[in-house]
């Protein structure tokens, strides 16, 4: 194991200075996520326009560097993506964290890929995988208007 794989510069940067942190007035979808084992919390806010495109996305929350960086990178990536694209990206990311060695979606340019792959370090730290995936599960919940809070110990 190598800590440098886990705490890459991109992670430390996004962890310390998360992008899109906060809330905005006219969101029309939102969802909360919670990891009861460690207390990490995330609240994702979305503005989805009439074309089902995410025109704005922000998040509030607190947690470890991995979860904050994951939420930060996710919100950057999702802006201006439509529902179909959002689904494809989430699926691709979650598969990469679970099994796939790489990302497969054509929607991702090299820059985004580098950012997303910086989270792949958690694969070697099974206890930390949920830190990386919590914001993504919460985004799914917001997009699908699922009632209740995402709970890492109940959903997988």
């Amino acid at each position, binding site marked *: 194991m190598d800590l440098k794989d886990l*705490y890459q510069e991109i992670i430390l940067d996004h962890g310390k200075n998360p992008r899109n942190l906060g809330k905005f007035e006219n969101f029309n979808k939102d969802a909360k996520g919670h990891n009861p084992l460690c207390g990490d919390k995330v609240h994702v806010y979305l503005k989805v326009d009439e074309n089902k495109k995410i025109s704005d996305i922000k998040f509030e929350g607190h947690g470890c560097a991995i979860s904050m960086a994951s939420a930060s990178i996710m919100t950057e990536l999702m802006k201006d993506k439509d529902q179909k694209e959002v689904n494809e990206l989430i699926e691709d990311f979650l598969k990469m964290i679970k099994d796939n060695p790489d990302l497969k979606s054509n929607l991702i340019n090299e820059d985004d890929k580098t950012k997303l792959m910086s989270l792949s370090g958690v694969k070697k730290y099974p206890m930390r995988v949920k830190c990386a995936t919590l914001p993504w599960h919460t985004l799914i919940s917001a997009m699908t208007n699922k009632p209740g809070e995402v709970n890492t110990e109940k959903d997988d």
Partner: protein
Amino acid sequence: MNIKDIKKEFPIFDNKVHNNDLVYLDSANSSQKPKVVVDRIYDFYTKEFSNVGRSVHYLAVAATNLYENTRVLVQKYINAKDPNEIVFTKGATEAINLVANTFGQKYLKEGDEILITELEHHSNYVPWHYLRKSKGVKINFADVDENGDISIESIEKKITPKTKILAITHLSNVTGAILPIKEIIQLAHSKNIPVLVDGCQGAPHLKLDMQDLDCDFYAISCHKMYGPTGLGVLYAKKKWLEELPPYQGGGGMIGEVKKEGITFGDLPNKYEAGTMATAQVIAFGESINFINKLGIEKIEEHERELTKYGEEILRKNNSVKLIGSPKNKGSVLSFTLDGVHPHDIATILDEDGVAIRAGHHCCQILHEKLGLAATARASLGVYNTKDDLDQLNSSINKCIKIFNS
């Protein structure tokens, strides 16, 4: 005490963690096991195994004697009056559930109040919570102060004519506060309120004397006392065990069973329904022998010195914020680091073989009061040394370096 020799009695320290020596600082969560305890489990299963209290054959009689022998060892360890005041449970959690359930059933009614504190582990809150629903009782919380301490006054303030029981920790598993429980018990008794002490962190580290403390109930987790998992002890004054109803029903706890009705067995069987954790009970006898051989006073002294040393070096480290500076502090060093989340601390420390815990440590009420979602916690056992704490400090510095580079 020669700690190097003591460490050798714990086989776990023969192993490497990520190619490093193990620096185990998570004993408040669960302690490591000396070889005598592990061997005792093996020997019992390979040479002496039988169920307890049910057959007359040779092995059954021998096993029953071994099992009851541990009860007497526990009785002496905590200076209870009578071995029948010792009930084996699956853990401290079950011990507290037993009391909450049976005491609630028999004595509590709508409007009654239970007093606990903001320091309590979920195990000493959630079992009482059920009585809110089933009985309509109210739960009050004595305030923790800015040092992470509970004063006698803060308890007194929350006692009302409706307070029917006080449930309180002996030693906080987050701030390390050792509460003045003897005085608190005196206060409660002066108002006719019985007291349950959550002794999970008290029993492994402090000399205990039930008759001197005069508490009504004391809950112990054996796995935190160099003993096996799946085992706890409830100490209860005999009059309570006689008066309260049984907790669970089953074999072994009955007197006479007829189609029309059932009578219950004598103490302690009344509270030990079904086949118990026999091997664990017998092995736990060796944990107590192990502690007695070293001397609990010596262990206390060693851990007090280590705690002081740990506090000193962590206070000197400007990035570290220690959580809780109670008057009387035992074996727990909780802390946060500027700009590094406790979970990241735990992962980075683990790489160096340093095992700590990060999170809310099953004390969400306290963490909310502290305004923290999580803390990092290093906690001590008899096998720890100043070197372990130096390693902790240097691994903490590594976290800071990673996060501030």
